[in-house]
């Protein structure tokens, strides 16, 4: 928690700089003393459940809300109290907010018309945008005649026409069906790469955040719980909340018995065994911690693994599910504890020999597990 918020606000050449920003509505603190630096050209995601404060933070970046305290700088200009219409920031709304009484062309041109740009310059820029979002054939259509995906493109073109320094995207993929999501996701990444504009995406969908962004801030109750690359956040969650929020994870509570060079040994009462895991946080002997391991990091087999460096546990198959590319197992340990295991189906019938109530061994390398302190 401590290192999650401090170390990541020291990014060099911060383009967006959020300093100790707090926003409260009456007694409710929506955003609680948040600091964050985002470098130029990054595709940054703010990830969190509903009511975590991510939307409020986004609206403060856009200028629809102003912070109760703290500072927001964009490109070294203090924009904390600048209204939305003066900020070099544009937003793509979750509802797309395409103006229903204007055709595609007029929607996209709106930002420039407000800036009193010459007609020919506007026309040229609109053509560029129409090409970028591939809506050239639809320029005279009204929004009512467009599909959801096309409306989103209008919203994107409209938000990009002023070449903003920052583009804010509020749940950009939430309203699209699965196939379209995947396509749009890559298109957004390409556009971001081509234009070099800094993107800030707000989403509740971890998959969206993981695939889209170069860095993620996981937010809960108005604070960042971890800021890092998708890989860091998935492989090395820095606390229980993040571990639990991103993907599935098995956790075992226990007490520290030994501290090695980079691994920590923990005795878990619940399963009556000693486990070791990678420790990235300073701990003391006797401290209560969790050992956490992802289902796909666990090996499963009928015979006892021979490798002595493995953590290994004995159990029975309590439940299993075949998902095509992989199988999911619920293994009941001797103490009654259920552990989730996910196994790739590399060969056509590799793991099909496992059936309900089979005795199995599960094991993992200590470096595949992490120690969670808070």
């Amino acid at each position, binding site marked *: 928690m401590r290192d999650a918020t401090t170390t990541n606000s020291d990014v060099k050449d911060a383009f967006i700089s959020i300093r100790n920003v707090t926003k409260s509505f009456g007694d409710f603190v929506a955003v609680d003393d948040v600091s964050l630096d985002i470098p130029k050209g990054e595709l940054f995601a703010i990830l969190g459940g509903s009511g975590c404060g991510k939307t409020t933070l986004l609206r403060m970046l*856009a*200028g*629809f809300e102003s912070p109760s305290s703290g500072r927001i700088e964009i490109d070294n200009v203090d924009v904390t109290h600048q*209204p*939305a*219409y*003066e900020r070099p*920031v*544009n*937003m793509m*709304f*979750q*509802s797309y*907010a395409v*103006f*229903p*009484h204007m055709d595609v062309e007029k929607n996209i041109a*709106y*930002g420039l018309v*407000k*800036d009193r740009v010459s007609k020919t310059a506007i026309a040229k820029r609109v053509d560029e945008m129409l090409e970028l979002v591939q809506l050239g054939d639809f320029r005279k259509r009204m929004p009512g005649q467009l599909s959801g995906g096309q409306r989103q493109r209008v*919203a994107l073109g*409209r*938000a990009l026409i*002023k070449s903003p320094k920052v583009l804010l995207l509020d749940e950009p993929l939430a309203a699209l069906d699965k196939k379209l999501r995947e396509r749009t996701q890559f298109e957004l990444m390409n556009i971001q790469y081509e234009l070099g504009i800094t993107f800030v995406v707000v989403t509740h969908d971890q998959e969206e955040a993981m695939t889209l962004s170069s860095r993620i801030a996981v937010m809960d109750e108005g604070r960042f719980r971890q800021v890092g690359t998708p890989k860091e956040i998935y492989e090395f969650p820095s606390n229980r909340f993040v571990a639990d929020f991103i993907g599935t994870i098995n956790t075992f509570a226990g007490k520290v018995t030994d501290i090695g060079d980079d691994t920590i040994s923990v005795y878990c009462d619940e399963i009556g065994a000693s486990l070791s895991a990678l420790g990235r946080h300073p701990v003391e002997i006797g401290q209560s911690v969790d050992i956490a391991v992802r289902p796909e990091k666990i090996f499963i087999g009928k015979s006892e693994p021979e490798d002595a460096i493995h953590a290994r546990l004995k159990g029975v198959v309590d439940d299993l599910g075949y998902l095509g590319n992989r199988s999911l197992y619920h293994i009941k340990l001797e103490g009654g504890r259920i552990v989730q295991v996910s196994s790739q189906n590399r060969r056509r019938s590799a793991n099909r020999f496992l059936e309900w109530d089979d005795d199995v061994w599960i094991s993992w390398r200590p470096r595949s597990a992490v120690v969670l302190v808070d």
Partner: protein
Amino acid sequence: MRRNSRFIISTLAFGYAFLYIPLVLVVVYSFNDSRIATVWGGFSTRWYGELLRNEQVLDAAYLSLRIAFTSATFATILGTMAGLALARFSRFRGRTLFTGMITSPMVMPEVITGLSLLLFFVTLQQLTGWPGQRGFSTITIAHITFSMAYVAVIVQSRLSGMDESLEEAAMDLGGRPLRVVFDITLPLIAPAMVAGWLLAFTLSLDDLVIASFVSGPGSSTLPMYIFSKVKLGVSPDINALATLIIAFISAGVFVAWFVIRRRA
């Protein structure tokens, strides 16, 4: 599809008969040659001619239209502002009370509204000397008071169904708040405003009770004129007048319907 049963057809016929036979009677008798309104004496358009030579009727009709037009316009402006405020004002204690209060003229008995307005005008006159004479201005003000509530409610319901991020998007793209109202909000609530104006116009043309309270000598609106004439017995030229009004309103309804259909 199922064939319509005889029961359904006769229900329909009765329903429409109930609604339209009185109106049809008025139209038919407006072409009656006889001086006695309820006895058929052959076809004639003479009452239309007489109506057009009747200065009193023309004055009353002109006054009514002027009042309706002015009051509908002002009611639309004020009602739109009230509707905007009601829909966009952030939550505060007692908001529901205020929302309810604006609709009170809709449920208040007209006699009460009329009486209170009369008292108000009389007091105002004693204090400031205005209005010296009750007539066009007092009736117009009275009509604005109750019809703006209708406009406010229509505009508010349209706004509450509208995505607020539309306005935010316009502001995000550089539109200053006042510009955004004209670029986005007003065009989107225009249908509600037109509907509100038409409603206010008809309500004003319709009104007899409130106008009777707040009008002065020599300023009779059309409904007041018709009502006072009918008290002396139904004369055939009133039938002709009623027919013209029916034609006028039907045309208005068709135009409104056509405009709305083309928008959609």
